[in-house]
Every structure is written in C-alpha cells, then in structure tokens.
C-alpha cells in the first residue's frame, strides 16, 4: 500500500452556529487536495459552509478494548446525573 495517498477524515459544518461533524473519509495527496476532494465527495448537495480535514494518522483514538476501564465505572454512579434536586417551580425551564 506504499503508493496509496494518505487517508483524511472529513468534518463539515452544516450551518453557521453548528459544530463541525464527522462525515467520512477520503484519500488525497495533501491537505489542499483533501479539502477539494471533500468538496466534491461530501458537499455536492449543499451540505456545508465549512470543511475541516485532518490526516487520519494524526487522530489519537481510545482503544475499544479499554471500554471497561474507561466507561464502566461511571455506569453505576447515577448520583452524577443532576436528577436528585428539587427545582422550585419559579425557576422555570432549565
């Protein structure tokens, strides 16, 4: 796979005020071409106002096998959810 272009992850902001969201990935020789390719592959139907690309190997990701140590300890700690407070009616919608 030595001749493959690097893989880029593509993030697109759909409208002003929203966050960029991951939409997929593509191959490109450099960042500029990655943005152009993202324009052609992911914004053909008027999906975006802003594109981010990041080379996939620059993303540090958690390992699926760490699922237990990372996430399970919080499952049993329901008191971390702010559901045990009596909210006075006068406060209105929070």
């Amino acid at each position: 796979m030595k001749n493959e272009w690097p893989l880029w992850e593509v993030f697109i902001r759909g409208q002003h005020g929203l966050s960029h969201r991951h939409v997929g990935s593509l191959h490109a020789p450099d960042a500029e071409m990655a943005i152009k390719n993202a324009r052609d592959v992911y914004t053909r139907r008027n999906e975006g106002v802003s594109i981010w690309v990041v080379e996939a190997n620059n993303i540090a990701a958690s390992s699926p096998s760490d699922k237990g140590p990372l996430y399970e300890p919080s499952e049993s700690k329901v008191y971390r959810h702010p559901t045990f407070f009596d909210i006075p009616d006068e406060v209105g919608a929070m």
Partner: protein
Amino acid sequence: MAATLTQDEALFQFLLRMGDNTLILGHRVSEWCGHAPVLEEDIALANTALDLIGQTQMWLGLAGEVQGAGKSADDLAFLRDVWDFRNVLLVEVPNADFGRTLMRQFLFDAWHSIQLGHLMKSSDPRIAAIAAKTSKEVAYHLERSADTVVGLGDGTEESHGFIQAALDYLWPYVGEMFTSDAVDAAMVDAGIAPDPASLRSDYDALVLRVLEDATLTVPDSRFAHKGGRTGAMHTEHLGHLLTQMQWLQRAYPGASW
C-alpha cells in the same frame, strides 16, 4: 459570410461556440466516469462534466431562442451533424491519459474563466446572467485543474513526463481560442463579448505562472490548429464522439426518460 451576417445570426454562432465548448468537453470528461485513477478523482471529474453539461443547457437553450426555429438545447446537442459544431478543437481531442485530460482541462478552464469574467459585463443581460451563474463553477474547475497540473508536473519523474508530453501535444490547440472573425467583430461592436485576441495577455500571464510552478517547459511554437470554432474543419475525433453521444436520439428519435 461576413456581408450577409445579421446580428441574430452572429449571436447564434457565438452562443453555439460557448455551448459547444462546454458540451463537447463535458462529454469528454464524462468518459472518465468509472475509470479514473482513484475514486476521489472519478467523482471530481464527474462533477466537472455535470457542471459543463448544465452550462450547455443554458448556452444552447439561449441559442435555440435566438435562432427562432423552435429548437431546444437537446435538439441542438443531439441532432446536429459534425460540421455544424462550433467548439474549439482543444475540447474534442481524446482524453488519452489522465495527464492529458487534466492539462486540456486546465488550458480550457483558464480561457473559460477569463472569458466569463468579461461576459458578466455583457450588454446582453441574458448572457451576463449565464456568465455570473457559471463563473463560480468555472473558478473551482480552474483551481482544481491548476493544482493538479502543478501536482503532476512538480511530482515524480514519471508524472512530470506525462504532463509535459500532454502540454507539448495540446499547446498547438491553444491559439484557436484567441482567433477572431466576423462573428466576434459583431459581438464586440454590440458590446456582447470581448475580442478573443484581447484575452491572450491575461491568459498567458495566468497559464505561464501555473506552468512555471509545475516546472513545465512551454513549447516555443505559436502554431495553432484551427477550424473548430468556425466549423471549417474539425478533427476526426469529433465525429467518433458524436456517434457515442448522439446514438440514442438518432436510433430512437424523440426518446425521453
């Protein structure tokens, strides 16, 4: 021809030239669909082809109106014979390799973007409107093809060889875009379109800058193949292209979705 050319006849010819350029190049680029070297390029080329064919609908649609013979853009695209086409020879040469396809695209896009910049100021509001709408697409085509030409030229020894060979092959087709005749004179007089020759210095400045970035050598010769935009003589390639592009309407007249 000059003596008998009415304003509407000249305008019709001018619109055919615009629409046939985008039609024939759009068809050529569409031939890559499913065959491009990588998926991303395949999609990008197909997008470009669709843009160009969309632009054709506007130019040939207006041409049909001006002609006043009740012809639609489809009639003009699919039911004319090779000698009635008015595209420059550059856009009908075969795709050959990816390098030649991209170099042809760049050499055309550069002219196209400059031409549309002038047409946005056309005295004919219909033409100014089409130019304003299409110039954004073409600005992107130019950005993409210029970057790819630089990428291939300033890339590996192999890619440089391919794109230099493409430039050497295509350069003699550049000059035709800047030739003028009675049709152009009528367009200039009416303030509809610029004199093609007047675009050459802007074109050279743009193209030479990109080709220099691409580390390519521009051929010395200013020899130009001609005959496409006047219809005097196309290359043998256009007839073959039309047999593919037009066969369905020829075999099944009036067929529609």
